Every structure is written in C-alpha cells, then in structure tokens.
C-alpha cells in the first residue's frame, strides 16, 4: 500500500489543546431532551467511539460536532478554537455516513476528487491526490467505476477516501459499518483501525455495536438517554463498568440482587453470603446489585474447597458457542439465583458436564462487583 499522506501527520503532542472539546452541550427537540450537559475532550490522534443504544443521542452529538445540528447550549471547540458559530464548511472535518452518500452519477475518482475540485487545486495535483487515496484504500483499479458497480465494502472505502481527500484534521464516522454483512464488517474494522493509526487522524465514530467499539476505539463514551454514562478505555469499560447500564450494555453480566450484610464488604443474596470486591461500603441492610462476568465464574475441580463465595449449582443448560460453551446454572439451595458461565473448550473437556449434573462453583470476590450506587 501507499506512502504516508504528508498533509496529515501523526502527532499526539502534549501541551496542545485537545482536538475536540465539548463543554456543557445540551440539545432538545421540542420537549424531548436529546442531550443533557455533555462535556468531554478528544485528544489529538485519538480514536473515540460514541456507544449506546438507538435513541441515546450519539448521532445527534456527532452532528453537533459536525455543525449539521445546532445545540441549544454548550460550546464545541476544535484545537482550542470555539467553532460553535461556524457553519459545517469551516470546521475542517471529513465525514462518512451509514448510507455513504456517495454521488451515484460520479465515478469513484470524481467522488474522491469532489472536495478538492471546489478548492480550485491544480488538476494534476488533484489527480495525484485521488490516486494516492485510492491506493490507500486499495481501490485504484476501480477508479472509473460508478458506486452502483461496487460492493458495499468497496463503497464504504470510497466514502472514507472521499472524506480524507481534503486532508481534514478530524474524521467523523456515523455507523460506517452497520450497513455491511458480518464478514465484511470484521475485515473492514481492522482495516479502518490500521488506517487511522497510520494517518494518526483524530477520529470520532458512532456505533451501537459494543464489539465494534471495544475492538476499534482508544476510548469509549458510553451514552444512554442523552447523558454520558461512562468514558474510558475499552478495558476499563469492560472490567470496571461504572453503572448498571454500562454493565448490561457492554458484554454479558450476571446480576444478583443482594442486601448489604453487617460485615463491610459482604452481602446476602437469598441464602448465600458473598464477599464482593472492595472498596465499596454500603449501609447494612441496603439493597445492592452485584455483577460478575460469565467468564469469571469458576466451575468444577478448579474450585478448591477453601475458595471464597463457594456454592453448589445444578447445570440447567449447555449452549455450545464455538470457542467457548455457556452453562446455565441454578444455585442449589437458592433456586432464585441463576448464573451463566462461559467455559473454554479445554476446561469443558476436563469437566464433562451434562444438563442436570451438579458442580462446585465459586464467584471470585475480586470479580464480583457492586454495580450502581447502593442506596444510602
């Protein structure tokens, strides 16, 4: 593939203002609040995902950054400059929509050149830049095709090349992969991420697909009902969900309704007494929601007799998922408590479980977290 694009240089220099900063942005449509007091920053060269269910306001937020939608209050800054009052054409970003919005009557080359031609660049210069970008997205041989003659994935790459052509300082992606089938989506995910790394261009992507966000983003902004639920790296979001919503939305999570015990750091769920991860302290008697990821639940011989949070469970279902197998578990003596547990293929072979069998189970305290603030 091609040489580096000279206009966009990878730089994450300290001391420089963030590429994008939102300060107290709010937006409503009539009486419906779409966004409420949103503030965060995106560093230069960073890949940030807005993640959330449909209707959470993530697309509206992206459109506000782009200037295509106007906020009711709040400030949008780019590299320190307040751009709130600037029309889209003067904000210097490239954008890719879910529909790609390629111009169907122009060839691939003319689509990519579209933004350059308006700038009255020299013809040879434009052609060189178009070739460079098509090389970058590996579509040089499709230069003279029309969009309708390309596959969905190819169209998406043309849209990306077109957005990058005028060398913007910011790339905005609005669910760019949702219209593609699963296999193409996986391949493009990696390709886009690699491209972003290479160009070092600050990128903001909107998605409702948590896997997409986890694999591509440097940081994820999890949104729900117009508010930011959590901002963090993919690992932080997955391991330390800040709220019940994040825990449920990102990955799979076993949830246990429990009551805080007299002993600090302990809780009761039915007949079970469990120790959860410090340092949350809850008033004795207050109700808590405890959460543990399926892959953190331990089952079978690996559970030692002296393990903490040890219990016995009956296997209620075995669901083969390829690389792992998901077991449905009902805790013996506390049938209201059900758990799901992911076992790797090797562990499963050792265990030899069947539906209806009983097995020792432990919930390691360091993986058992209190989700959502306990009511004080």
């Amino acid at each position, binding site marked *: 593939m091609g040489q580096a694009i000279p206009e966009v240089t990878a730089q994450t220099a300290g001391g420089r203002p963030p590429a994008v900063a939102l300060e107290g942005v709010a*937006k409503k449509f009539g009486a419906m609040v779409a966004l409420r007091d949103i503030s965060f920053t995106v560093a230069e060269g960073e890949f940030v995902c807005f993640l959330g269910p449909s209707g959470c306001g993530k697309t509206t937020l992206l459109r506000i950054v782009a200037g295509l939608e106007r906020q009711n209050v709040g400030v949008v800054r780019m590299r320190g400059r307040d751009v709130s009052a600037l029309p889209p054409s003067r904000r210097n970003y490239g954008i890719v929509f879910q529909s790609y*919005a390629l111009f169907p009557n122009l060839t691939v080359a003319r689509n990519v050149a579209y933004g350059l031609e308006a700038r009255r660049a020299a013809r040879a210069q434009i052609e060189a830049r178009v070739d460079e970008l098509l090389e970058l997205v590996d579509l040089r041989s499709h230069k003279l095709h029309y969009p309708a003659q390309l596959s969905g994935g190819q169209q998406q790459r043309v849209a990306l090349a077109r957005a990058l052509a005028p060398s913007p300082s910011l790339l905005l992606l609005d669910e760019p992969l949702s219209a593609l089938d699963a296999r193409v989506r996986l391949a493009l995910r990696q390709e886009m991420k690699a491209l972003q790394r290479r160009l070092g261009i600050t990128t903001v992507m909107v998605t409702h697909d948590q896997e997409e966000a986890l694999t591509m983003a440097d940081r994820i902004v999890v949104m729900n009902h117009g508010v930011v639920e959590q901002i963090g790296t993919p690992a932080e979001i997955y391991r330390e969900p800040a709220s019940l919503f994040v825990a449920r939305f990102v990955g799979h999570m076993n949830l246990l309704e429990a009551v805080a015990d007299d002993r600090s750091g302990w809780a009761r769920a039915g007949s079970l007494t469990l120790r959860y991860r410090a340092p949350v302290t809850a008033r004795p008697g207050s109700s808590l929601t405890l959460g543990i990821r399926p892959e953190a639940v331990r089952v079978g011989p690996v559970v030692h007799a002296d393990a903490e949070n040890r219990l016995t469970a009956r296997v209620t279902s075995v669901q083969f998922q390829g690389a792992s197998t998901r077991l449905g578990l009902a805790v013996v003596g506390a049938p209201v408590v059900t758990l799901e547990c992911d076992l790797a293929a090797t562990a499963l072979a050792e265990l030899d479980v069947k539906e209806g069998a009983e097995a020792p189970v432990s919930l390691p305290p360091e993986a058992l977290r209190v989700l959502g603030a306990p009511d004080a």
Partner: protein
Amino acid sequence: MAIRRAGDAAAIPDRVVRQQLDTERVVRYALLVLFALFLWVFLAWPMAQMFWRSLLDNSGRFVGLANYVRYFSTPAIGVSIVNSLTVSLIAMVLTVGLAFVYAYALTRTRMPGRGAFRLVAMLPIFAPSLVSAIAFVYAFGNNGLFTRQTGINVGIYGAKGIVLAEVFYCFPHAMLILMAAFAAADARLYDAAAALGAPRRTVFLTVTLPGVKYGLMSACFVVFTLVLTDFGVPKVVGGKFSVMATEIYNQVIGQQNFTMGATVSVVLLVPALLACVVDRLVQRRQYALVSSSARPLTPGGTGLARGLLFAYCALIAACILAIYFVIFASSVVTRWPYNLTPTLKHYRFDSLGGYTALLNSVWVAALTAVVGTVITFAGAYLVEKCRTAANGVLYLFALLPVAVPGMVLGLAYIFAFNAPGSVLNRVYGTLAILVISNLIHYFTVPFLTATTTLKQMDAEFESVSASMGVAFYRTFWRVTVPIALPSIVGVSMYFFLNAMVTLSAVVFLVAPGTELAAVAVLLLDDAGETAQATGMSVLIIGIGLLARLTYWALLRGVTRRTQAWTTATREPGRGA
C-alpha cells in the same frame, strides 16, 4: 424518568446556538424568499383579490355576502351549481367505469395490441377539451352526420353532450391512474387465494378490488374535478345548459359583471378544493398499500374472458379513433360531409390572420416548460433541503394550485393585474401573463414530482458537501440535477403539453396580439368556422404528439448518457 426529562427540557433554552451567515446561507435564504415572493404575487395575492371582490358590488362598495345571497336566490344563475355537480358526477361514474375495465384488460391480461390500445386511449390528452365536443357536434349536432342520415336528433346540446364529450376527454386520465393501481398488485395474495381454493369471483371481490380501491377513488376525484372545472366542453355543446365554469364566463365576458363572476368562482372553488384534499389523503394511503417485498403479478386470463375484453377495448379505441378521424377529416375536405374534395384552405386561418395564435401557443408552452421546470425544481429543493419555519406554509401554497380551477385563476389575474395603479399592470396583455398563469395553474403536479424525486436521493449529499466546503448550489448542479434528469425532462413535458391545450385559465387573459391556439379553436367554432377550428385542433394535437416523441427520444438519450451509473455492470464507465 419521564418527569425528570420533562423538567430538564424546560431548563434547556429553546433557541439554538446561531451559526455565522456565510454567502452560501445568504444565497439559500434569498432564493427561498424569492420563491415565497413568486407564490405570493402570482397565487396568494390574486386569489385574495378575488375573495375580496366577491364581497363588493360593481361600484366597489362593500356589501358583505349580498352577492352570494343573490347567486343562490337567482334561479337562472343558481341552477348552474346543481347542473355542474350533476354532469360531473355522471361523467365521473361513466368514465371511471369504462376506464376500469379498459385498464384491467391492459394490465391483467396478455391480449394482443395492448400497446396500441394504450396509445389510442392517450390521444385526448393531446387536444384541448373542447375538441371532443366539436367532434360530437359534427356527428350528432343539428346538422350532424348522424342526424342527417337517420333523421334522429339526439339533442346533443345540453347535459347529454357535455357528459359524452367529457367522458372522452377524461378517459385517459382515469385510465392512467387505474393502470398504475392495477400494475401495483402483489402476486403473493393471488397465490394465497388460489391455494385456499377461492373461485374467481371471490378473488376479484376480495383481492383485486381492495387492491385498487385507492386508485379507483383517486380516479373518481380527478375526473370529477376535471369535469367540474372544464370550460371548453360546456361552452361548445352546453347550449342553454348552464354550468359554473360557463356561468363565470357569461358573467364576466357577457355581462361585464365581475363581482358575480368572482362570487361564482369562490363557490366553484369549494367542491374543487374538497375533492383535491380528499384525493391527497387517499393517495397517501395508496403508497402504504404495496409492501416492498411484494412480488409483481404475471398477467394470465383465459381465452373467453380475454376475447371479450379484447372486443371491449377494440370498441372503445375505435370510438376514440372515430372522433379524431372526424376532426382530421373535416379539416382537410371542402365541406364535411357534403363536399369531400380534399383541400388545405382551412389551414390558412383567414379569419385569424394566419399562424400567430399557433406560434404564440408554442412559444408560451416552451417558455412555460423551461421556466416552470426551473421554478418547481428549485422551489422543491429549497423547501425540501433548508429547514425554516416557513417551509410548511410554502409547501401548502405549492399544493394549492391544483385545486384552483383555471377560470378562477384567470379571473383572479384580471383583478390583480388589470387594476389601475398596480405595479404589475405591465404584464397584463402580454405573453408573460399567459406563461405565468400556466406556471401557477399546473404548478402542483411538477412540484410534487420534484419533491418525490428529491426525497428519493440520499439526504446526506448536502452534509457531505458542506463537510468538504462545497457550496450547496454546486452539488445541486453536479449531483442533484443529473440524477433527477429523467424526472426533469418529464416535468417540462407536462408543462409543455398542458400549456398547449389549456383554455380555461388563459381565456380571460389573451389580448390582441397574444391569441393562443386553444382559444382560437373556441373562437373559430363560435364564429361558425368549424373546419378551421378542427384544423387548428389537428395542429395542436400534431405538435403535442411531436413533443411527446421528442420526449421519448430525449429520455432515451438522457438515460443513456447521464444515467450510465444505474447499470450495475462491472464494465468501467467512461471517465468524466
């Protein structure tokens, strides 16, 4: 949760953060204002003038509803309301009934000659409405061919003649709507009915009929409105049978009673507006009827049914052809039907002073086509793509013209542009006012076509362009227009053909030097120069057919040259 959100909504201010005005935005708003001004000056203001005039007496004093009271209480005038509604309803039932079977035969069977049948049935669209009336007079009038031969006078002058001629005039309009409705069938429903063992009659009543019910209703409203607002036919064969459109003409031209003309116009506006609103509501449902997963129906039909339908279509087509044959034949013989010596003397148009009227018509139609296409497309684009508070109002005003009968619009223009002291007085008596009245009279259908075409395009073209710093007008020119070209060509043809044949709106507005062909047909017929009238009609039809042919050729050329991208072959297209 909901309560908390509602509280928050109050805490967020209603205003949005303003963006700086750049040239692009200024251009956009300026164009929108121009478009609004156009609709105001040439539609809203004249109509308002007419409403106002219906409340004044002839010396300009305000008399409230006195004119309306007089209209409804004077039997000689008031009868026109009942007459209008009666002939409109009868013509509607006959036309839609006949067109229903015809359209069914053309879409749901594979009988031979479907293309030819369709073409023949389209003929009346190319002629002014009064042409079919003239043909009926030729055949059944007091000195008509049929009357002479058989000695039976069917009494063509009056309701009978109006209904007959209107059925011919409206037939293609009903047929096109019904054909579209029949074509949009879902084969899966028929498969299901067959699998359940439903007899054919049951299938027709439970699948076919419900499937086209909205098309049927739409055809009814369109025909009803066409007949109600038509002026040419009742003028020629109405005799003493007064309908509202001719009543307006009589009041204005015959008696110089402008206020009564305005009063009848306002009353005529009511049923026309009503039919139009209901039609809009019905059409909106039609779209929802066919799901995107529907499978098109392959027409079948057995031998006997097909034979009967073929005979039916042949009969109808023969009738239509006969009418146009009479028109053509009468114009090229010395004196039809007594002296059949061929001659072209009727084409000299002595009493008109030659071809001025026809040339005016072509010129006006061409201007209407060009200017109309530009205004409707630009207007639809502005209303569709820039969101302002005024857009809803603009959209409503753009829909209004279809409900305004031509006579009413023409009279409104007299009030607005023939008033002493009006700035726009200058356009009165020029070709410009004829073009403008055509633009407004036929505004709605092209505007809706343009809106639909624009809605089918990706909504983010403008966003993408803005992000790259490309002005919206550049994208409009380079992307929107090329994609919409087939629709643009279609719209300009619609304007051209209608401007060629329209009579009702322009009959009040022509002046010495700005005569039009369709008006000439009326005047020649009035003056007893019937052969010259049919000669002029033949030329109008000829030009219409020629334009249609050009349209097909253009469309094929346009499709091949600019729509290359729609062919999803893997062959690389030519570089731009």
